């Protein structure tokens, strides 16, 4: 019941936006539904901790620890994004008559993401992955400028191309399951049938899904659309795209890993580790030469997706814990970064790094947030990203993967200096023109405070239930 309510609420809000076309109703419906979804996601997480799984329909709709973690993250970012949109869209939208359309698509987008972790049938999951692309296309192109439409077009065509490849992967996976005599096509059913599956089929299926959904996650070399889409969309949408959408799609790839680990003699761990490292390395060098600060955070997403995939590929329980911890910390830090970038855009009107100087004097809230966000996402010590990256290093060293861990440390260090160099120039650099003070909309500053608090607190203290949830989810990936 809870799972149905979680998926139905955003759909209901979308229906209200569509039927009234009134900006105030759209804002209110989005805020209320996202808060309710967040409350329900917390309840689902506690139910999962109490009795391991919430099942709504056997073999179709259910949630385990990993799903509950994803639901929590989606709901959290959807809520902050809804509040940030409230003030942000009022200031940024040139055409108030279209605001309902923004909220309609936002709610549909959130709906399509929430459905992914609660479905356990791979082809049904695929359908909703495709829907996330289709529902967010209009959000990316919302501003109707040449650049926004170009970004939306690249995003849609490349993601759909990837989705078609992944669909073939899921059909091959189905035939592999049938060849092994399996009956139920679910994540669970696949794991139990895996030891009898023909390796040729399962390997082909994995490569097709990795390449196909890897496109949508932003893994190198199919990442080219990502910085375009994640920089041209309105900032709250960027927070969702970068903070949770990429991770939700990565979650689908992670769901396949236990299946693959159960098949003897496959080199899938090597695939995951090398794909991950290539993404981290490429993104680290691209981070040095960015000119647009929203693109900078987008490249940092490519880097983090690579880190998570690599950690998941290391294979031990400790590495899986690190990977999921990284999912959590990246989501909190990256969504905060995009809210800070949105505030900087409101304050300065420019996306260029070179055009923004002395932000801390123009808007102390935006400047401080950008500095805090930059430090957090780059992985500076008191913040949670540092802790999660450190747990991945430790797991890698325990596995004696010295070369992989060495490269990872090197790339993360390059990325660290690149991000902080750009952020430092923007926040403290000498402003060329006289600086006038700027006030952010109240809802935007509110979201900045809440998101900053989450980022800071998560680095110092991880609540016991959340730690439990992470550990159970990691255990379900390891068996």
């Amino acid at each position, binding site marked *: 019941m809870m799972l149905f309510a979680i998926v139905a609420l955003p759909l209901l809000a979308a229906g209200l936006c569509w039927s009234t076309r009134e900006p105030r109703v759209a804002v209110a419906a989005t805020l209320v539904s996202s808060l309710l979804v967040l409350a329900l996601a917390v309840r689902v997480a506690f139910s999962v901790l109490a009795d391991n799984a919430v099942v709504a329909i056997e073999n179709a709709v259910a949630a385990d620890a990993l799903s509950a973690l994803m639901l929590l993250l989606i709901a959290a970012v959807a809520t902050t994004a809804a509040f940030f949109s409230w003030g942000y869209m009022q200031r940024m939208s040139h055409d108030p008559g279209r605001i309902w359309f923004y909220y309609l698509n936002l709610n549909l987008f959130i709906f399509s993401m929430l459905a992914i972790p609660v479905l356990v049938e791979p082809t049904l999951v695929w359908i909703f992955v495709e829907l996330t692309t289709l529902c967010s296309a209009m959000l990316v192109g919302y501003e109707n400028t040449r650049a926004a439409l*170009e970004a939306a077009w*690249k995003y849609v065509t490349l993601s759909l191309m990837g989705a078609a490849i992944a669909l073939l992967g899921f059909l091959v996976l189905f*035939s592999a399951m049938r060849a092994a005599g399996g009956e139920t096509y679910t994540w669970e059913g696949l794991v139990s049938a895996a030891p009898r599956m023909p390796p040729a089929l399962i390997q082909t299926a994995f490569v097709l899904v990795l390449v196909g959904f890897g496109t949508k996650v932003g893994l190198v070399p199919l990442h080219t659309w990502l910085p375009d889409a994640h920089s041209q969309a309105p900032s709250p949408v960027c927070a969702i795209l970068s903070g949770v959408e990429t991770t939700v799609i990565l979650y689908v790839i992670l769901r396949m890993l236990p299946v693959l680990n159960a098949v003897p003699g496959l080199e899938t761990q090597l695939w995951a580790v090398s794909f991950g490292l290539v993404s981290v390395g490429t993104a680290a060098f691209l981070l040095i030469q960015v000119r647009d600060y929203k693109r900078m955070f987008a490249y940092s997403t490519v880097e983090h997706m690579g880190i998570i995939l690599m950690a998941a590929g290391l294979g031990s329980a400790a590495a899986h814990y690190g990977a999921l911890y990284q999912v959590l910390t990246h989501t909190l830090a990256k969504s905060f970064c995009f809210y800070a970038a949105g505030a900087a855009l409101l304050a300065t009107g420019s996306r260029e790094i070179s055009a923004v100087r002395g932000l801390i004097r123009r808007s102390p809230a935006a400047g401080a947030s950008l500095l805090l966000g930059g430090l957090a996402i780059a992985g500076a010590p008191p913040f949670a990203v540092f802790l999660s990256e450190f747990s991945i290093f430790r797991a890698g060293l325990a596995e004696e993967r010295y070369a992989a861990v060495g490269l990872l440390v090197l790339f993360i260090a390059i990325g660290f200096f690149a991000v902080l160099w750009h952020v430092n120039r923007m926040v403290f650099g000498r402003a060329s023109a006289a600086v006038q003070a700027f006030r952010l909309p109240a809802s935007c500053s509110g979201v900045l405070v809440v998101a900053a608090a989450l980022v800071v607190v998560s680095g110092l203290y991880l609540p016991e239930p959340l730690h439990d949830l992470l550990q159970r989810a990691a255990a379900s990936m390891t068996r």
Partner: protein
Amino acid sequence: MQSETLAALNTLAGGLFLLCAFGIVATRQVKGCLQLFVAQSVLLAASAFLLGARFDSWHLIAVGVVNLIAKPVVIPWILRRTLHEEIYTRREIDQAVNIPTSLLAALALVILSYFLTLPLLEAVDPASRLGNVPIGFAGLFLGALTLAVRREAVPLLIGVLAMENGVFFAGIALSRELPFIVELAIASDGLILVFVVGVLTRAIHKHVGSTDVGALAALKEESGP
């Protein structure tokens, strides 16, 4: 009909399906491209009917019916509703890669897909050991090639749809027992896809003034304002 006749007809449908995929890569006229896609979808449905008759599977026949309604009828209708007539009558003057080169690349991809699917065909159960699998993979690759070489919005959309046709062509052999509800949902997903891309194309036509999306290349690192 006898099983051999059905098998021979299915092979014929597969050959023609592949021919349509080649045509989609190389046709300059937007309208011609759409007609080839319709023909390809009809052949996909035909193959589903033939396999359904051969294996006594009502499920495959239902999949054929869904494809026959959704792709040749509803998709062109949605495109006509969302797009301006002018976009249809366009001709691509320059493609990213010239036609002989792209046809050679297409040929190489077909050979590659036969080579790639050999180990798969040995592993699947004997009833799925059909020409549909390599032809479906080839359809997927040729659709991706279409995305790489075309510049107009509508042929690019048809490239995506041709990729899905390829997936289904292999799918009717590989995953015959996939729940019908899933197939239905995937088909309706395809309709939403055409609608969204159509609306996006209309927005590009309105705000940029052309549907030559290959010319949209401002977003990159080297050159910025």
